[in-house]
């Protein structure tokens, strides 16, 4: 992706997604975006600010509060030759339009024998922020990984946020783009030059020899902190940022586990039935002989996201929890 010679700039995750939209909308006039409160307000996280002035409100469209019609209309528009981006406001609202996502958007290409792909992106801000509690804090990505036909990407930093959003908009298949709400204000280095982050490719963020720690999205940043702590204790952690969770980059994970012989997975979503379960199963099926210790998963408890501070704190994954889990494997 980024060559060492690339000139870099520092911008926020939110700005990174904004630049991706600007570049792709300038490049391809079929690209448009619709969602709640995106034109006048600029998005709850400012991730659409300034786009209406540049591209007009015919391409940056405020919609009625109608998630079903938003996603369905984007599917229909895609079939009629456009390349829509739908904004879900909060990922939690995807439940309202799940039929449009998994029976229409995901299946049309396959069940109609490949007549036309549904080339669209569904942007879904997810995760814990500001004690928003049960219906505004969820990490629901595992649902979408269970549906053949979708691709699911989930960046952890501004550079991948931009590169993956641009790649998602150019992708012919439907893509769910999760963007963690707590990441929007995060600053990071982004190449000055144009680039794409390939969909379906994980990234080895740091090489290590004792244990493979797989994560993505906001939790990836916590995993880095956990790895720093463990490093000081003499535990060398290989860090993998999945970036795409469907399809999963099995090769990168299996190669790493072959080297380290230990696997831990950390994500903010509920542990039960999560992406970590799938990765555990892949490694158990294909590389169990490599393992020197049982696989460890760090995920949220099997409860809705609670509101009160101590409860949310207990629910939340932290670097300490990840480090403790990894320590227990050694």
């Amino acid at each position, binding site marked *: 992706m980024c060559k060492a010679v690339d000139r870099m700039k520092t911008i926020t995750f939110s700005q990174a997604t904004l630049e991706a939209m600007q570049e792709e909308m300038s490049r391809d006039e079929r690209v448009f975006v619709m969602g709640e409160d995106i034109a006048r307000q600029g998005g709850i996280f400012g991730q659409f600010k300034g786009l209406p002035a540049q591209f007009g409100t015919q391409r940056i469209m405020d919609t*009625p509060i109608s998630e079903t019609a938003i996603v369905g209309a984007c*599917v229909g528009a895609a079939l*009629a030759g456009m390349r829509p981006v739908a904004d879900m406001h909060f990922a939690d609202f995807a439940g309202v339009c799940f039929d449009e996502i998994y029976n229409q958007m995901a299946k049309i290409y396959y*069940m109609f024998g490949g007549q036309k792909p549904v080339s669209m992106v569904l942007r879904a801000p997810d995760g814990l922020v500001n004690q928003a509690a049960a219906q505004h804090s969820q990490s629901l990505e595992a649902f979408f990984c269970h549906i053949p036909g979708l691709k699911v990407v989930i960046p952890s930093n501004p550079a991948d946020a931009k590169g993956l959003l641009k790649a998602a908009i150019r992708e012919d*298949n439907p893509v769910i783009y999760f963007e963690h709400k707590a990441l929007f204000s995060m600053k990071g280095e982004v190449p000055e030059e144009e680039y794409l982050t390939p969909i379906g490719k994980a990234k080895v963020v740091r090489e290590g020899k004792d244990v493979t720690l797989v994560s993505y999205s906001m939790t990836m940043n916590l995993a880095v902190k956990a790895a720093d702590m463990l490093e000081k204790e003499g535990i060398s952690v290989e860090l993998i940022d999945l970036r795409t969770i469907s399809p999963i980059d099995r090769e990168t994970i299996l190669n790493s586990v072959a080297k380290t012989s230990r696997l831990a997975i950390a994500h903010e979503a509920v542990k039960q039935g999560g992406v970590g379960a799938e990765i555990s199963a892949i490694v158990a099926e294909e590389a169990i002989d490599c393992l020197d210790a049982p696989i460890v998963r760090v995920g949220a408890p099997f409860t809705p996201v609670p509101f009160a501070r101590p409860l949310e704190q207990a629910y939340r994954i932290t670097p300490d929890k990840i480090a403790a889990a990894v320590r227990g494997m050694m």
Partner: protein
Amino acid sequence: MCAMPVRKEATLPLARYDKETLKFFYETMVKIRNFELTVEKYFFDGEIPGFVHLYIGEEATATGVMANLRKTDYIQSTHRGHGHTIAKGADLKHMMAEIFGKITGCCKGKGGSMHIADFSVGMLGANGIVGGGFSLATGAALAQKMQKTDGVAVAFFGDGASNRGTFHEAANMAAAWKLPVIFLCENNQWASTTPYRTTTSVDDIADRAQGYGMPGVIVDGNDVFAVYEAARELIERARRGEGPAILECKTYRIKGHFVGDPEMYRTKEEVQKVLEETDPIPRFEAKVLKAKAMTKKELEAIRTRVEKELAEALEFARTSPEPEVSALYEGLYV
């Protein structure tokens, strides 16, 4: 604001219809009827798998609407979608092969009856989810508007589907944005096994149009002329950029909800009575013959042509191979 829905009848004298349109009406209705009877036979013979929902008795609606559409206009169909697909101009061979689950089918045997589509003629798909098509048609209409064409999209739906929340969201969005979409209700009286009136708050689905600030029109859906004329007005209005409308076509589902439905919820006499009194095909024949707009010979020639086309389609479907197992993973992603 729009007032209560308007009931309309065919008013255009037959002499004003050109021969091509009359031929299209008859040929399309007969094609749908015979296609469906063939499908029914081969379903019962065990050659056609899956779930099949027949359009018999409702032919005038698809035909009257589609006579106003161009190839580049879009339709969204329903689980009862063969009639729409035929009327929109899909090739019978590839349709029949699809319903037989063959590799030569228009969906390569991946869809079947409930998920049939032919994008090459603007038929964006049947939908196995009742009420799944409203917003897709709305989006196709939005695309037409963005692309600055005067194309339209038609969302076919039944009285049962009108009770889905998807109807509300799409109708409001289409009306708020003045999109060129026609919500085409085929009120066939039955929501699967439930008489629609026992679960629906209004007698006429078109009543709901006024809640969205769009016109609502009701016609006899078994009168191809009435459907054609009412659809033409609303479609032309949509082409001019004046927004969506609801057209409710009152019709009747002659066959069961699906092929094999034991139909315990109604009597054979009820169905027979409706068929005898309102079957759109004999009604068309009687009307054009009486007015001398078409001759018996012309009608017969059309029927013969349709029979031949259908026999070829059937032969093609029956002799085509099933997909190789290797096709399972093909076409999941581009």
